[in-house]
């Protein structure tokens, strides 16, 4: 037993009720019950941690304070003497972001013969896509259809999703799976070649396709390998974009990158720009831990907004119900929803179930927060609250050895801290997981700025106010490919006599001035800062002003 003694006692309680819970069919909530639960406990409904945007296309909209401070931030190019008569690179399509959406866009644009540059903040493939364990949805079985998938998506999103985006998502899904397979992604299959598929929270059909519990990693490493195979794609690693370039008419025209190795700017002239920078979990809204990649700092939203693009659904974030709550070293890391798909139940301090395990993510997260606030949670020695996720249940339901076979990544992760998933339950609490909103797009990934396209988590509208498991990997492939197609098409039509400038920054500063806003930050922030500042030396760095 690897739990400290106060927790050990509580583990016994979970063990004691397992047999009785095995026979229990916990009821699903009605629409009204769900709504009440969300309003009372979901973090999106708190008022004190939100603020109203004052400047730009989304003035008047509500968003978390952390995000508002960045999208109303100051550009790092304050007094930059950047000579824009010359460019370090000229290209047809500039893809900003090297994750799943960015790589899918680049490969697709390259298929059309466009010259492509991928600029990425860290290494190619360093992205949330790599971490998505659960699976990818597609309605490809006989008892399923794109229409049934559609209904699940909009129901999960509380009927707020943009219909044409959902249509694109579900219609392209089977082809996305085949595209991945043709690139060499290995899906879990039966001997006859049919897909082994499972349920996810909020699905009415078993349509989750998996690659063990490395689905995102398998997809990402394959896409990365394909990008590296193509001479037509130039990859600039450790080169995040810090500002877009626009024409005097306001069209996208390229970007300024910062080479992090050399601390030097790069000027890129591009006929079309695809923003695929992913999410913003590393902004730690409301102080939540996050399951996100180190680079998830919302850069694309900042860049697009300053260039004049409208954002959508930026008042809603997804808190994945099952982030790790113990051990402390991996707090906030994801426990894949596949664990619940396989049959693990959520259990409170008293050994009782309190929610149907496959309600949508926002509902399950709210139920866990309720249990903890009402003293039915478990407090760890580090002072973190959580509830039990009863993983040994899987072995009873699906046979001994299932946990090791279906969840190798997770077994490995917990074994490093001495916890055996197939024998002991684990402690979980919601973790900041996904940016439901982002830059508003249409079904071809266009934004309100001409020649600027957005795909993947950086966009908003596909998932409405809540995303279902397995629709994010699908989103990055479907809309990544669409952005690549459309980006190449537009680029090959545009002649290159346009003039990239930073004039949108002048307009932006004028707006800030008119509204008397003093920016709180320089944005995008590019990376979080987790360094410890010694007491009394909060800056801690030589040469900074005290």
């Amino acid at each position, binding site marked *: 037993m690897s739990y400290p003694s106060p927790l050990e006692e509580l583990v016994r309680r979970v063990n004691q009720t397992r047999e009785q819970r095995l026979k229990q069919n916990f009821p699903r909530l009605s*629409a009204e019950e769900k709504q009440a639960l969300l309003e009372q406990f979901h973090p999106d409904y708190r008022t004190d941690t939100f603020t109203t945007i004052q400047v730009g296309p989304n003035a008047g909209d509500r968003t978390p304070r952390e995000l508002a401070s960045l999208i109303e931030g100051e550009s790092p190019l304050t007094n930059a003497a950047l000579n824009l008569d010359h460019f370090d690179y000229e290209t047809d399509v500039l893809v900003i972001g090297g994750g799943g959406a960015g790589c899918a866009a680049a490969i697709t644009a390259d298929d059309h013969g466009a010259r492509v540059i991928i600029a990425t903040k*860290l290494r190619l*493939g*360093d992205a949330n896509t*790599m*971490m998505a364990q659960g699976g990818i949805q*597609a*309605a*490809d*079985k006989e008892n399923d259809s*794109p*229409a*049934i998938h*559609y*209904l*699940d998506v*909009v*129901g999960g999103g509380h*009927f707020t999703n943009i*219909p044409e985006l*959902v*249509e694109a998502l579900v*219609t392209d899904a*089977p*082809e996305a799976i*085949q595209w991945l397979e*043709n*690139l*060499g992604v*290995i899906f879990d*299959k039966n001997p006859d*070649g*049919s*897909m082994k598929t499972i*349920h996810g929270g909020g699905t*009415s059909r*078993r349509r989750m396709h998996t690659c*063990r519990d*490395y689905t995102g*990693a398998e997809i990402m*490493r*394959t896409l990365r390998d*394909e990008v*590296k*195979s193509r*001479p037509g794609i130039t990859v600039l690693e*450790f080169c995040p974009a810090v500002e877009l370039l626009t024409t005097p008419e306001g069209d996208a025209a390229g970007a300024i990158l910062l080479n992090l190795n050399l601390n030097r700017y790069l000027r890129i002239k591009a006929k079309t720009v695809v923003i695929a920078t992913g999410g913003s979990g590393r902004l730690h809204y409301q102080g939540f831990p996050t*399951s996100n*990649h*180190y680079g998830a700092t919302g850069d694309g939203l900042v860049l697009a907004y300053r260039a004049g693009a409208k954002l959508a659904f930026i008042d809603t974030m997804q808190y994945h119900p099952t982030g790790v709550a113990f051990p402390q*070293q991996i707090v906030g890391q994801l426990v894949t929803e596949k664990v619940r798909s396989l049959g693990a139940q959520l259990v409170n301090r008293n050994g009782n179930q309190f929610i149907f395990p496959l309600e949508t993510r926002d509902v399950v997260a709210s139920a866990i927060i309720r249990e903890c606030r009402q003293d039915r949670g478990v407090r760890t020695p580090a002072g973190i609250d959580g509830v039990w996720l009863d993983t040994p249940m899987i072995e009873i339901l699906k046979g001994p050895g299932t946990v090791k076979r279906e969840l190798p*990544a997770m077994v*490995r*992760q917990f074994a*490093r801290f001495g916890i055996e998933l197939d024998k002991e339950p684990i402690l979980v609490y919601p973790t900041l997981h996904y940016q439901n909103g982002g830059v508003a797009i249409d079904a071809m990934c266009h934004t309100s700025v001409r020649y600027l396209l957005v795909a993947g988590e950086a966009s908003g509208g596909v998932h409405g106010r809540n995303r279902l498991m397995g629709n994010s990997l699908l989103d990055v492939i479907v809309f990544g490919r669409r952005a690549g197609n459309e980006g190449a098409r537009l680029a090959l039509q545009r002649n290159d006599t346009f003039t990239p400038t930073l004039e949108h920054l002048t307009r932006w500063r004028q707006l800030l001035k008119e509204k008397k806003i003093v920016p709180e930050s320089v944005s995008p922030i590019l*990376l979080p*800062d*987790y*360094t*410890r500042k010694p007491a009394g030396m909060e800056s801690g760095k030589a040469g900074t002003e005290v």
Partner: protein
Amino acid sequence: MNENLIDIYIMGEHHQVPDSLTILQALEYAGYRLTRGVGCRGGFCGACATVYRVNGDYHLKFALACQTKVEPNMQLAMIPFFPAHRPRYRLSELKGTAQEVLDIYPELLRCYGCNTCTKSCPQDIDVLGYVSALLRGELASAADISFDCIMCGLCVSRCPAELVKHHAALLCRRIYGSRLAPRSAHLNQRIAEIRAGKFKAELEQLKNMDRKRLQELYAAREVEPEE
């Protein structure tokens, strides 16, 4: 929380850090704001491959900095980049044989079975096992054994025969996934149906449906039972 401080050495430099931290957290506690050697922080991306030993012991140990706790007297070094060879190939132009993998990575034939790769794998993968399978021409087996590889490259950094195993394994998996794995009849059929426009009218109807009716349909959904 009370912090029990221990001594560690980051690239030779002495630091005191709480013993509850992972190596990655310890680096940040010591003041490193990382751009290299950090990635997903969840054990999936291989960015934080770390080599260490403990003072007094000559054995080298291997770990992912985000998944491993510090221990007293650790001597730590990160491998933020390793110049691993990756020839350019186009999967679509390959026939899909084990021989092609050996043609692209001929150095695989130099393996003399020392097993250093397996010992250096932070994922506990039987690296030598998949290299051997590949050398026997068993692509499916090589793909299966190597499946959990996160491509950190530690096995490559340690190989005395200079094999680029993780890239060769990726090629095996891509060949298996695209050429050898049995195809799904239901997937092909659904794609054909979509291209023929079979679901267009139904989706059009859903797109234009008012919220109340959608909610009713949603509530009345038939849910496929678990297996």
